[in-house]
């Protein structure tokens, strides 16, 4: 018998101990565990192999199979005002640059800046230059409403565009248009920006792709075969989740109707800063993590397929934040699995097969952490 057998033996004893504990009622266990100065914390020991291998079922022959990463919702201020979010985006850039193999490209999910200022956007553009893989940009409302996108467009080009990659058609939408609420109120650009950046105010209008945007989308998709896998990037979720926070796209139903002819559609959105999954008709929806802060879940409207992340530790800069990647063709041909790279936690994979089966298959493990 060597070193290992002794440890194994004690692990078994320990397991027996915890088996015994588990016969204690849950409530009493909570108390016991609490008083025992963290025996509960050590319970992880008996269950060390709960890590999820990112094993990918073999997709159909000839179907596209690749990955892309994302960084989203960095909300940069001028560095002199706040460099914490700057450190966070740098951490995300390190993460995606360290991915092996490298992703085919990196999606930036919008809200690069906090209040649309030129120095904020330029700082972001500068930092994103250090991403090794090509970067695809999406705009968010925080980038837009100070100057209605002038600086952003100057740096990154048109906010709405499409491209093809390895047999998948990608569309990036500008989904955060708002109806003019500012002219009649004689708002300054800064007031307009600050209004849009706020939650729970009745002043601003809801996000929308808008009639022009929908027309553009229809035309773009007209020439694409319905069997082609389609991935749509939009900053706001392309469905109606919670109106008061603009976790919402007013013309979501119309946009979904345009996408309905396709067999495999994945919508990837930012804005909500949380683990968020939904499935409507033929469309699978994945929310992206923010590098800056996590939002709590809204009081109503949470899609039932969402496996919630627990409430983050308020004393931990990174908890509930992160970046991630998508594996196209991972579990289902033509759809994307979402790997949430939660900082300070273990990664969570939400597979397309889970969404496509309406929650019947491959249910992501619920967090073992209780909420604050």
């Amino acid at each position, binding site marked *: 018998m060597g070193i290992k057998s002794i440890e194994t033996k004690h692990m078994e004893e320990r397991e027996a101990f915890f088996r015994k504990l588990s016969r204690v009622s849950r409530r009493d266990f909570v*108390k016991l*565990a609490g008083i025992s100065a963290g025996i509960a914390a050590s319970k992880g020991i008996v269950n060390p*192999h709960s890590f999820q291998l990112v094993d990918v079922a073999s997709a159909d022959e000839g179907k596209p199979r690749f990955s892309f990463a994302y960084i989203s919702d960095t909300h940069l201020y001028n560095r002199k005002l706040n460099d914490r979010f700057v450190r966070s985006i740098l951490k995300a850039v390190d993460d995606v640059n360290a991915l092996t193999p490298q992703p085919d490209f990196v999606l930036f999910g919008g809200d690069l800046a906090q209040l649309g200022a030129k120095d904020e956007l330029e700082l972001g553009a500068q930092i994103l230059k250090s991403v090794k893989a090509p970067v695809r940009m999406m705009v968010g409302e925080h980038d837009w409403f100070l100057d209605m996108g002038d600086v952003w467009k100057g740096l990154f080009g048109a906010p709405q565009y499409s491209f093809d990659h390895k047999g998948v058609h990608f569309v990036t939408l500008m989904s955060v248009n708002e109806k003019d609420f500012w002219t009649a109120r004689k708002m300054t650009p800064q007031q307009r920006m600050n209004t849009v950046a706020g939650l729970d105010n009745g002043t601003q209008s809801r996000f929308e792709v808008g009639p022009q945007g929908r027309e553009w989308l229809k035309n773009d998709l007209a020439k694409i075969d319905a069997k082609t896998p389609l991935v749509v990037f939009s900053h706001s979720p392309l469905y109606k989740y919670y109106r008061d926070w603009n976790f919402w796209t007013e013309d979501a139903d119309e946009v979904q109707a345009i996408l309905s002819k396709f067999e495999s559609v994945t919508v990837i959105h930012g804005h909500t800063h949380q683990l968020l999954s939904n499935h409507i008709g033929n469309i699978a929806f994945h929310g992206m993590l923010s590098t800056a802060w996590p939002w709590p879940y809204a009081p109503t409207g949470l899609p039932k397929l969402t496996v919630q992340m627990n409430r983050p*530790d308020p004393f*931990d800069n990174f908890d509930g934040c992160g970046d991630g990647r998508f594996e196209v063709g991972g579990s289902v041909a033509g759809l994307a699995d979402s790997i949430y790279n939660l900082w300070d936690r273990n990664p969570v994979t939400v597979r397309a097969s889970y969404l496509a089966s309406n929650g019947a298959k491959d249910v992501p493990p619920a967090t*073992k*952490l*209780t909420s604050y």
Partner: protein
Amino acid sequence: MRTPRWRSPRAVSAESRPRGDAGGVAIGNAYCAIHTIDWCGAATRVILRAMKNPFCAGGRARLALAPLAACLLAFAACEEAPPARTPKPASAGAAAPSASAGATLFTPERGAGEKAPEGEVSLAHVPKDLPLGVSPLLYAMAVPPQSVPSPAQIALGDKLFNDKRLSADDSVSCATCHDPKTGFTDHKTTAEGIKKQRGQRNSPTVLNAMFGATQFWDGRAATLEAQAKLPILNPIEMGMRSDADVVAKVQKIPEYAASFKQVFGRDVTFDDLAVALAAFERTQYSGTAPFDRFIQGDEKALNDAEKRGWALFNGKGRCNTCHAGNAVSPLFSDQKFHNIGIAAHKQDFPALAREAVAVVNSGNQKQVDELAIESKFSELGRFLVTKQTNDVGAFKTPTLRNVGITAPYMHDGSMDTLWDVMDHYNKGGVANPFLDGGMQRLGLSENDVDDLVAFMGSLTSDKFAAYGKQEMARMQGQKGKRPQRDMVAANGPNGSKGDLGDIAPDPDLKVKNPASNGVFGTYDVANGGK
């Protein structure tokens, strides 16, 4: 004695629900809990009153435990309604929780032979002479009745602990690295085993190790017994080849053959040997530090610098995020594992860590086992035990009791003084991809750092008071050498003002010394304990 009054635990906001890895109340996040209590208005005062003696001494079990129970009940109540069990009537004069506090956690008046019902903790076996700061409940939780060491086991364990014959070449005993005279440490950077071989990690103190939820810096051993065996067999520590070899060697020593027969009623076994060593370690509880007297209400037990340090500890210094010292976290440790960026000082840690994560994700168990024994991967810490990404480079939060006499610091002994430790935290640690998000720059001034170090000195047990003074003076002498100091990083780009609330404000001791606040202390002395 006054009967504490209880408010329904439900009065505490649901927001106070703490996080626990296994569904339990996580001690480590008492920071959050305590602060929540602080925010909870009326319920606060009730609980504060109840928490009169968070660091209670022996002989006052009931008074001290009741508040603890109330506190935990308050948290637990967020999960479920209090159970209907009626508390046993208390003996005359003793404080008993009223029915609204829910079930009693224990029934100390139970006869010695009577078994505690499941879920309750018996205190019948707890020593009556526990020092200040070591509560009977803590002891009872760490030492179940069947593990209470007998005097014969303790004596045998003490002898074994100091016996170099447990090592392959009779050169190293447990006490070589855990020297009882110097706080059970060796003051070496990393442990030195037989043939002057160097290990990868700093020898932690045995003091209060018995209360640890896990043993070793990476928590790979669950019990003192499990821990005790491994250094004996480790080729670079005590170097015995197998447990059979250990047993054969010890059995051949007549005095041990006789002692084992006497104590355990049989020949030497490796398990019994570990039991004896653990028995000795279970006597090494340590409290009765100046801090304990302060928290019991002796305002003069701490000087002004130490009091300021305690306020900084719970505020601007953020120490209590992991090292909380309070009723539910009596060890100044959350018993969890954190990457604070020590490993990142050396080698190419990020590349190493990512290599290891890739190996684990590949699922090749053989390769994973090989990783664990390669010394350069030692820096991966807890990850090698759990294989969880979140544990890369994470090491156990050590207790801060007696920290003043256990230099050098950190899992690799890479920091010589407590000033170095503070410098490290002040700049927010060393960035790496797995750095704990709780690591943030602190913006502590040089005076703040001095005060915090002074406070840590107040955690040294009276038993080591003279040695503690000597050690603090020695570290003070090295204050000029500050390799970790980086005030630019500590203050951030905007100087010490912080940015958007990153850095907590200085405690304003003129207005109200947070250190005398009942949450952290015992009660408001000026107000007659009301």
